[in-house]
């Protein structure tokens, strides 16, 4: 078997907007790979294409040697790919607990008690708020819930879209610690981030996406040292 996940010259369109212009990338088992890039570069589109919510017009998405690009999204989840989408997409009028329950939707007929306990351990805040409507949680709490919900699917590959968005520096630290933790427990992570510094700290490897194309790929350490990256994404002049 080759790579866990492989995108091979993927082109994705929204109508006639060419959002991904031939993206190729690989993720190996056990890695944290980060995808950085400025606004509108196509990071979210890449994740949506992997989850099959958006269909590529050209190219292939391979997960453990299976082609995902023709699969319906609910089958992709069953293969063990879960996504915490960008922008706090929680089920607003459901309680925290019900959101978690939905996270395990792809695994019918199994007890979720242990999994709920596990995510409550990772995010004690969610436990306190378990009966609260998700829409009334604070932004940071909603972000945690979106991640926790993705974890409830028992993913082998976790896709995180800007998990630190809108979080305080302390919470951001915590989230990245949790990501490292989840990875240490055996989940492969593909992480999209604006916060390139933090992302490159936690990741093993990274890709830089610019207007729909991968312009750089290297180990996280090399990327963090790269002059171009430092200027464009780490805020150095």
């Amino acid at each position, binding site marked *: 078997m080759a790579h866990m996940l492989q995108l091979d010259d993927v082109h994705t369109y929204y109508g006639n907007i060419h959002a991904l212009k031939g993206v190729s990338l690989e993720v190996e088992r056990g890695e944290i790979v980060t995808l950085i890039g400025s606004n509108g570069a196509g990071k979210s589109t890449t994740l949506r294409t992997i*989850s099959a*919510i958006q269909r590529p017009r050209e190219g292939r998405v391979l997960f453990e040697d299976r082609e995902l690009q023709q699969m*319906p*999204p*609910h089958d992709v*989840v*069953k293969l063990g790919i*879960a*996504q915490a*989408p960008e922008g706090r*997409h*929680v*089920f*607003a*009028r*459901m*309680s925290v*607990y*019900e959101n978690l*329950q*939905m*996270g*395990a*939707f*792809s*695994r*019918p*007929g*199994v*007890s*979720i*008690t242990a999994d*709920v306990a596990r995510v409550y351990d990772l995010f004690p805040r969610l436990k306190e708020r*378990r*009966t609260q409507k998700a829409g009334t949680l604070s932004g940071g709490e909603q972000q945690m819930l979106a991640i926790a*919900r993705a974890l409830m*699917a028992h993913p082998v590959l976790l896709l995180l879209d800007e998990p630190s968005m809108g979080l305080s520096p302390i919470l951001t630290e915590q989230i990245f610690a949790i990501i490292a933790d989840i990875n240490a427990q055996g989940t492969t992570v593909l992480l999209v981030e604006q916060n390139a510094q933090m992302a490159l700290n936690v990741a093993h490897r990274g890709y830089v996406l610019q207007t729909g194309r991968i312009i750089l790929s290297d180990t996280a350490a090399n990327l963090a040292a790269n002059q171009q990256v430092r200027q464009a994404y780490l805020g150095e002049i």
Partner: protein
Amino acid sequence: MRGSASQLRRAISLGLITGAVMLYLVAVGIVLAFSARNTITGVVTLGRLMLAAPPLAAGYVVARRGTDLAPRLVAGLLLGAVSGVIVAAALLFASAVDIRHILVRISPPLLAFLAFDQDASIGALLNLALAAALGLIGAVAAVVPSRVRRPAITGVIGVVVISMLEPFLRPRLTDFKLEGVSRFLFTHKGLSIASAIVVFAIFAVGSVAWPRVRARYRARVAAADPGTQATIRGVTLLLLIVFLLALPQIAGSFLSQVLVFVGLYTLLALGLNIVVGYAGLLDLGYVAFYAVGSYLTALLTSPISSLGVGLPFWVALPIVILGAAVTGLFIGAPVLRLRGDYLAIVTLGFGEIARLLFLSDALKPWFGGTQGILGVPPLFGVAKVSVPILGWQLTGPTLTYYPLLFFCVIAAIVATRLKYSRIGRAWNAMREDEDVAQATGVNVTNYKLLAFALGASVGCLGGAVFATHLASVFPGTFNILVSITVLSIIILGGMGSIPGVVVGALALIGLPELLREFAEFKLLVYGGVLVLMMLLRPEGLLPDRVRQQELHEADEEEEPGADGGALTPAEQG
């Protein structure tokens, strides 16, 4: 001081609005239509009460704020007076200038009614004084503590409701050999002054006593051991069943007819509730399924239909349900990708297409065009059933009532079970956020189609019963108003709430049937009710939130586990 000044300003602006509302009620003719209904004979009619309601309610609203007594009462008085000025001015104007060619309802009898059969100028003064007094009474209601307000309001509602029921109560009381009661209660199609006082007192006392009795009863049940609790629950259920079964006998044939309509719309609303309330798919063409159910039933059971097979109802029913489910899939499939308003518009079109197909000349050999299909046999094959021992003779509505009740109960049970099942959760998620639902593994296509098919099946049950009840089907019945009415019921009751559906059907179908004068204004009232609901209580009269919350809190404490497969909900709280 500044607070009270702003309160007075608010009183004036609310007073202007109130006056406008009163004029509107008068001008559309609804007030005059109800002025023939005595509430308390010789004292007040339903029409008068309708006109009195706006200043009363607005006076209450304006005086609810504030701490000092005097400014609050003054605000109410002022508000009433302002609305009174508007009505009085309009009355004077209409008496002096003939505006009947613009507002056709402004007739001499109406003006006489408005002026209390006095001269226009005296009438104007009376209106002013009355409206001011009503505004003040409303304010007083806001000022007094709720232990006074509640019984008073309940008493008034009691008087209004009992007097409204006069045409039905009186003959029933006679049937049950209670002429004495009837003679005491009613004179000239309304309550007498004495009986009004008694009714008021009974309701007022009831409103005080009832919560206490209930609380004590609940406390006692809670204190009892589980075995006794189960027995109590069983007995309550049994009593409810007996009551529902005996209801047509108590209500008599006319009220049974009303019950049949309420039941029919309850059934339709239960079905549409699955589509709109659970799955969040705004379907405005629901009438199509009602029509398909009716026509399929007529085709299969009527010996003189184009098919001419004359199957018994219960043999035809599975075919009808299947046919409707397939129709649901047919309508559902092309609209799967549409969201929100687009879906609403397309389904609206489908509803009309269904009606036009049944009406069309091309399909006349099948569906009979405008003539429809006649000769649909009664549901049980016979027009009359006698119940041994009890000696009941069931015919017409008293007979139709039972299968309808049966279908409603089945539909309600299925809907409840679905709601708290895996399927219900998937719908819920889909309604909240379709993309994320997909990303958590919900097969959105299948769940949408399932909602359409189930909603269609329930809707067609209504159609099937309807066809047998009328012994015929006509395309004219199946217009868009049916869809709108059913949707209004759901919105009034509370999206996704099953008790809400029943309450909504009682209010929007039962009430207009009881108040025949309403017929003409039905749509106006529906519109008004919907707007008010959206403004004041968008979650509906009986929202299901609380229950849902409780339920899920409960199942978490225990064992959330074992997600049931397919149709069997594993965890019922």
